[in-house]
């Protein structure tokens, strides 16, 4: 792999030998044309592999930090008394690293992943905007490889909470459509609730609340061991005069 995930076309990339950060970027549509079948992302289980390479000052060997773990107090700092081999380096029993994946994904529940991933949600739940005013419509997006539109109607709930965390409205039985494991619900109206403080009527198909309230969608995924997936977005029933005059690129709530 070349520097920053670029392909290596002949010769060597000396930056790889000294750059402590490596990156692999993949795209579903590299040329920006949906007509071309050039996607690099395949749905399914992927393997992320970290291994000792063949290069280095000593080929295929970790040197200098190859001693046993000297970090007695686990603070990742070289403290007094920890430098057992007197080389001024904190040996950690090998080369430590961090790995990050940003993708429409979640970890597999296998022995190859830490226990903290054991109850991660096996689906993703999102509202279609990051904020709603009281004349918007709200739709739910769910990504789940083993769900159906019918099962999501039973497992997905939208709740409205007041600023103090009181549940004021609940809507269920949403209607979903699917494409490639991505589900979108029919939109529900978001409106100002009645009374003071505002409250809604559960099950009437309208999400009712007020400024400072929060919409929360939950997907109680029946996949064994899966934690409930959730997404949240605030409500704001006040006129956004500043936002209307200065639209933000990428804003999910364009001015009207």
């Amino acid at each position, binding site marked *: 792999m070349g520097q920053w995930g670029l392909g290596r076309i002949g010769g060597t990339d000396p930056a790889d030998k000294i750059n*402590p*950060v*490596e*990156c*692999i970027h*993949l*795209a579903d549509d590299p*040329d*920006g044309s*949906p007509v071309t079948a050039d*996607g690099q*992302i395949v*749905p*399914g*289980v*992927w393997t992320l*592999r*970290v291994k*000792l390479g063949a290069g280095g000052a000593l080929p295929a*060997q*970790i040197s*200098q*930090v*190859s001693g046993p773990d000297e970090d007695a107090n686990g603070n990742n*700092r*070289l*403290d*007094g008394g920890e*430098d057992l081999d007197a080389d*001024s*380096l*904190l040996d950690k*029993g*090998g*080369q*430590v*690293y*961090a790995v*990050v*994946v*940003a*993708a*429409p*994904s*979640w*970890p597999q529940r296998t022995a*190859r992943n830490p226990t903290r991933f054991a109850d991660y949600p*096996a689906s*993703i739940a999102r509202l279609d905007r990051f904020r709603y005013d009281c004349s918007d419509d709200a739709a739910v997006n769910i*990504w*789940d*490889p083993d769900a159906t539109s019918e099962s999501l109607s039973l497992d997905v709930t939208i709740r409205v909470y007041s600023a103090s965390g009181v549940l004021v409205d609940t809507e269920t039985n949403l209607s*979903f459509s699917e*494409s*490639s*494991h*991505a*589900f*979108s619900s029919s939109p529900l109206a978001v409106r100002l609730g009645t009374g003071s403080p505002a409250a809604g009527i559960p099950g009437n198909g309208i999400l009712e609340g007020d400024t400072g309230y929060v919409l929360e969608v939950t997907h109680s995924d029946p996949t064994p061991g899966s934690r409930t997936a959730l997404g949240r977005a605030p409500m704001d029933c006040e006129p956004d005069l500043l936002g209307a005059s200065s639209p933000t690129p*990428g804003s999910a709530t364009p001015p009207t």
Partner: protein
Amino acid sequence: MLAASANFAERDIGTHDNALGMDTTDIQVATTRGSVVPAGSPAVSTVLLNNQQGYGRVVVSHVLPVVNWPDAKIPGDAALTGDTLEGPALGLLIWDGIDPDGTGPDAAEPPISNSDTLREHHFQVVGTRARSDPAWLGPIPPATSWSTTSIWS
């Protein structure tokens, strides 16, 4: 390493391991792209690069399409430059060499050593469609993986 990246008072940049806050050596590093400074105990002249200028400091959102990226494909001139078209991704998974919960039950990502040379993790990519609305086929989140080894500290 990612946790350490948020620690701006890097103690090992100081004149000794227990140095706190900014001292003359921190200033020396902060005002250059990189410099030779004393590090460790006993102090050894070591090259440290200026993290604020992009050397060594890990800032995830600078290089990964995390969820708070604008909901648009960038860079706009990717077809000309050959860069990867990317939009915000829905998930972020981290395996970190620093124990994420300190003294809690979880454990850090073990190091790669001469006797333990390979580590694998599995993750599920759910699909290539951002959502089912055909009109929304454009901005589909990419899968991106990124790894970083730590600067010895």
